């Protein structure tokens, strides 16, 4: 009995050690656990799909690292990275000076304009004058939340912050919001849905502010992982030149999302 216990304990220890060793070679890539179509969202079989998931697979294959997609709550995704719960963020995170104080970024891998949408039949545009007195929805801890607070905060009646973009869209459709500010592509995906078509339209793009809106979306990394950063930068460049990037994009978008 004692021997059995002892060998079981040894086996268990070895199992743990093996699991630790195996985990060391795998790269846990964090995406937001909240659906963010068309970039990443779970489908009905529980699998994560979208442009960014395909992009992740392509980049990791190019960089020859084994990536495991790991959904993490968006508002805790940076702490998750710094506390080593995940090793990289590919969650449509824009490269901003503020975030760069805490984490490192790879080169950008897409960049799209920021827009404001609102209900049909109400005329206003994406300026502080247009949004005066309105209830504006944004996703929490995004560049859009920061931008809205700085430019629209003083004039709107309230800025509501949502855990997911989807909930903000939902509240716009159900009339609890007058406007939603976000990335144009994800808003376009909502406007193309039945619900979006029925209720809302684009009111315009906001005036750019690189200090807040950043210079495109990059892979978030820990500052000390410089080797990984170089690897990813090389991989992004490679799939840009060998056509993989365009091939992935074509099945989702009609235009080039890489931006200037």
């Amino acid at each position, binding site marked *: 009995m004692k021997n059995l216990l002892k060998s079981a304990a040894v086996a268990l220890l070895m199992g743990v050690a093996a699991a630790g060793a195996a985990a060391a070679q*795998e790269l*846990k890539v964090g995406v937001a656990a909240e*659906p963010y179509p068309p970039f990443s969202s*779970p489908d*009905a*079989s529980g699998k994560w799909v979208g442009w960014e998931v395909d992009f992740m697979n392509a980049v990791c294959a190019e960089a020859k690292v084994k990536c495991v997609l790991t959904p993490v*709550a968006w508002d805790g995704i940076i702490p998750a990275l710094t*506390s080593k*719960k995940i090793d990289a963020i590919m969650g449509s995170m824009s490269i901003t000076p503020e975030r760069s104080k805490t984490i490192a970024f790879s080169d950008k891998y897409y960049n799209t304009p920021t827009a404001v949408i609102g209900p049909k039949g109400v005329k206003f545009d994406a300026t502080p004058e247009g949004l005066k007195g309105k209830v504006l929805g944004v996703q929490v801890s995004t560049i859009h939340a920061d931008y809205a607070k700085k430019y629209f905060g003083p004039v709107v009646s309230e800025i509501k912050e949502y855990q997911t973009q*989807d909930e903000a869209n939902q509240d716009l459709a159900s009339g609890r919001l007058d406007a939603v500010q976000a990335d144009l592509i994800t808003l376009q995906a909502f406007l193309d849905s039945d619900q979006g078509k029925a209720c809302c339209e684009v009111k315009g793009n906001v005036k750019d502010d690189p200090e807040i809106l950043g210079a495109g979306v990059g892979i978030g990394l820990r500052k000390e992982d410089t080797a990984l950063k170089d690897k990813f930068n090389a991989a992004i460049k490679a799939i840009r030149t060998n056509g993989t990037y365009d091939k992935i994009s074509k099945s989702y978008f009609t235009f080039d999302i890489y931006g200037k």
Partner: protein
Amino acid sequence: MDATLHLLSLTSPGWGGVLLGGLVASLQVAFGGYLLGLLIGTGGAAGKLWGGPILRDLLEVYTTVVRGVPELVLILILYYAGTDAVNQLMALAGLPSVDISGLAAGIFVIGVVQGAYSTEVLRGAILSIPPGQIEAARAYGMSPLLALRRVTLPAMLPFALPGLSNLWLIATKDTALLAVVGFAELTLVTRQAAGTTKAYMTFFLAAGVLYLGITLVSNLVIRAIEKRALRGMTRPGGAA
């Protein structure tokens, strides 16, 4: 709403399978966390009753803090801090950092929270044992450990059962809070499914039915266990 019922079918494009997967994850965390909580609770109760003054005070701090801070906040702190602490320990020991799965972290978090409540339940139950029974065990020359196993634990069970079954029901519902840290248990997958399909009512009601099912089945099992544990006991209101 009837039009969205097909979304609940078990295979894609229905989300039923995903919901059931979430249900399994919830049950795993609830079960693991509950057991861990019992373990902590047993140790905690023993420490509070028979430990030294320092241990007793520390346990008092533990139970007070856990019972005074919202589970949601504890889960956030423990979820990040727990993983961090383990990896720092591993680094101190010169080992590579381990990868802590969401499941393990969830069980740990629920277990620590449940442990504080179990401590109090078990302590109260042990205190309700008539002292004569334990004295009799000692008089028979039982060693302290044997007395604990053969007399104290079985004798306190009837007193602990109502509290412990309540804790189990709380554990199953507390797992929903893990949705906030992005762990794919029933509530989070429900929200994902609802958000993608826009059929909010259908999915939230379906998840409600699943949770209610857990509670009702648990109640049946609890009643059966209580009936067995309380056999031969006559106490006014003892079967409550």
